[in-house]
Structures are given as C-alpha cells and as structure tokens.
C-alpha cells in the first residue's frame, strides 16, 4: 500500500502541530578549562557551536593549528595576535593522550 494514500491532511496536521512545539533543546555546554585564553576561546568558538565538539577532540598542535585556521576562515573572530595562543591553549588542554570525555546522555526534555 502506498503511504501517500494514507498520508492525509489529518496526518499533516498532526505533524505540523508537533513541529509547532518550541524548540526544547536546552544545551548546557561543558565548561572550558581555566586559563588566560578561556574567555576568548569561549567567545570565538561558541558563537557558532557549543563546546561539546571542542572538548571531545584529542589532537596534536599541528592538527589544532589546522582546525583553528579553518575556523578563522569560516568566520571565527580571532585576533591575529591571538591565533598562536588559541592553538597553544587547545593543544595543551585537549592533547592526543588525554582520556576521553565521559559519556553524556540526553534527557527527555519537558513538554509545554
């Protein structure tokens, strides 16, 4: 049986109603490690994405250097005088030999 034949207006209405719920995703971002660059990295990076994606990386300074340059190209606001310090901060705090981040699970959210 074709699903489309059963995909009537009531189903669409239900889908739309469901989609009309406000976005309930409440993102709590992991804290970045303390240091002179903490605030600048937080500001520059979390403008576009939260810090989960940062703290799970385990990279050497060469790889962090590539990542920082890519993000600057993609719009991260990093003063050119801070570029090397960004790479240093990320390399020191998220190196290849650091243990993985603990697993985090999503909660169920609250319906309104």
């Amino acid at each position, binding site marked *: 049986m074709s*699903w489309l034949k059963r995909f009537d207006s009531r189903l669409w209405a239900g889908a739309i109603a469901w989609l009309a719920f406000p976005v309930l*995703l409440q993102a709590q971002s992991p804290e970045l490690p303390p240091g002179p660059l903490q605030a600048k990295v937080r500001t520059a990076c979390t403008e576009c994405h939260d810090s989960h994606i940062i703290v799970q990386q385990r990279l050497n300074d060469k790889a962090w250097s590539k990542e920082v340059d890519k993000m600057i190209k993609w719009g991260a606001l990093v003063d050119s005088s801070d570029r090397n310090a960004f790479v240093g901060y990320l390399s020191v705090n998220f190196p290849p030999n650091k243990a993985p981040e603990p697993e985090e699970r999503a909660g169920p959210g609250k319906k309104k």
Partner: protein
Amino acid sequence: MLPRSIWAANLGVEVPGKAGMIVRSARFLDLETPGEFFDSWITPLPHFFVRNHMHEPSTWDPDSWNLSISGEVDHPLSLNLAELTKMETHTVTNTLECAGNGRAFQQPKVPGVQWQRGAVGTARFSGPRLRDLLQRAGIKATGKHVMFRGRDEVPGKVPPFVRSIPVEKATDADTLIATQMNGVPLPRHHGFPARALVPGWIGAASCKWLTEIKVLDQEFDGNFMKPGYRMPNHPVSPGGEVNLADTHAATSLGVKSIIAQPTEGSSMKSHSIRIHGAAWAGEAAVARLQISTDGGTTWSDARLGSQQARYAWRLWDHVWRPQRPGEYIIMSRATDDQGHTQPQSAAWNPSGYLYNAVDQVKVYVLA
C-alpha cells in the same frame, strides 16, 4: 527504560523525543545511539542517530516549502509538498550510517565528531523516486551529477551543506526523495519535510531539509565534496598527509559490524552471555558474521537474524559460555557476499571516514 544512574549523571542537555541518546554535540545537534538501543531491526525514531552539520531550519511551515529542479534539464520545475506527495511512493529499508562513525577509534586521532559505534540506524524511508522527478524535468545529455541543497542555517562564513551524487545513482530505482520515516512524516531532526535517501551510501549523501535539486555537468566542487568527504586513492601511513588531487568522493559504505552488547568494560557474572550486534555492507549484503572471545585466535559463526532487505543491516547474536572468570576480548567480524571481510585495522585517513575495523570490546567475567 534506562537505568536511573544514567539520568543522574547527565542532566545538562534535554532533547525531547531523543532521551537516552549519547550527546556528541548539542548545538549543532549530534546524537549517537548507545549499545542498549541496538535491539531491533528497525530503529525506532527516538533512538535514531542525528548528524547535523549546521543549525536546523528555524521555520517549519510545510505550506511554503518548495523543491526546485534545475540545471542541466530540459524543463526546470518546482513542486510544493502537496504535489510531491501526490507522486507514486516507494519504500526502501536502509541502514544509514554517518561516514565518520567509528572516528573515535582512529589512531592517530583525527578531528571531527568523535563517534564510536552508534552513528548508524535502520529505517523505512518512503517517498517518490528521484528518477521520476528527474524524468519529469528531463536530464540533458550533459547532466552528470545531481546536487542537493538543504535549508540548513549556516553560521558565520561556513560553506553551505551542498553535495552531489552521480546521475547513475540518482536515477537508481531505490534513490528517493523521502517524506516519511518508519511510516510517519520525517521528524524535524531527520529532515522534515523531505530529504534525499541515497541507499547504501554515506549518510552525508542523503541531504536533509531538501529544497533544491540541480543537475550539474560535473561533480559539485563545494567544501562538503572537496576537501570534505574525500577518501585517499592509495593507502596512507597513519598520520600522513594526503594530496587532495589524489582522492575521491566517499560513496558506498563498506562491510562492517558492531558489538552492541556487552559494552566495553562491562562485568558479567552469567555463565551464559548473549553477545549481539548489527552488521551491514552498503550496497552489498552481509553473508557471514563471526565472533571471537579470545582476542581473535579462534572464531565461531554467529546467528544472523532473519530480517533482511537489500540495503539494511542484519542483526546477529551469539551465546557465549565462558569457562572461567577473567578478562576477555570479544571481537565481531563481518563478511559480505562479494567476499570482503572487515580488516583487523581500518585504513587510516585524515578525517576518519568509513572506519570498519573488526569491532572489539574488553569485558570481565566474574566468579
């Protein structure tokens, strides 16, 4: 129901409809399916992984949605959702896997979402065939690739998520413009109201929140085709550099299996332990699944589940009766019907794509 201890440890990120998923990123949303959810052939929508490269579209009005088809075609056209859903529908049961699934196991480490085993799921996708749309538009002889653009909202100067597939795959009878997933309208995290469904290929080929299809005279050359989602043409020494000119676009998934349970580091008292998981092979079929409980010295055939479909995984299980307490390495190894077997170690590449090494977990059997 998940153990309460999991909730107690993780109260930070709330995702309605996706409770219990592993949070790899909250913004953009990237959710991984944990081992305990790999217990059904069709993955329930709440347990289906989410891979977003960008922000999801902030508006969701299906009445204003349109899908355009242009480029190397005789008759450019545009359809609204009602027109799309009037077309003949087909259903394909497909195992969708992110190209980066397993990236966390690459050595040396590579950048990107650190997926372990769970950026993969199987669903029934339904919608019109892409080739029916393309036939309506009439592909010119110059049309070689079919490009997809979605409504992902791009931050900063990030390049848009636009990719293309060869016209041969686009006109395959199983390549769809899916509007449903497991019999309901596509959920928002999975591309509402329509997405491409390119069966057997990396998840990135199946563009979500689709609004534009464009027939091109060559492969699309944007960031997410090059340098993104490229595979080296030749083996690369781990950690080595790759010349972009010596790469090709990642397409079909390889043969692969995962151990869903027991999970890494778990302890068990039972003298009869069920080992189970899933195995898939992209456009090929899984022919065999072997298990080792002695670190790869000896292998036994696992039982493949009866449910199967051309592009879908096979679930598998195996009952293990350890003779004595101790530490054990359990391994799973799949072979497809083309004779390809999972390698002991995956070919390294700078982005960790298509990781498919023999899966393994260390477990402890208690007295």
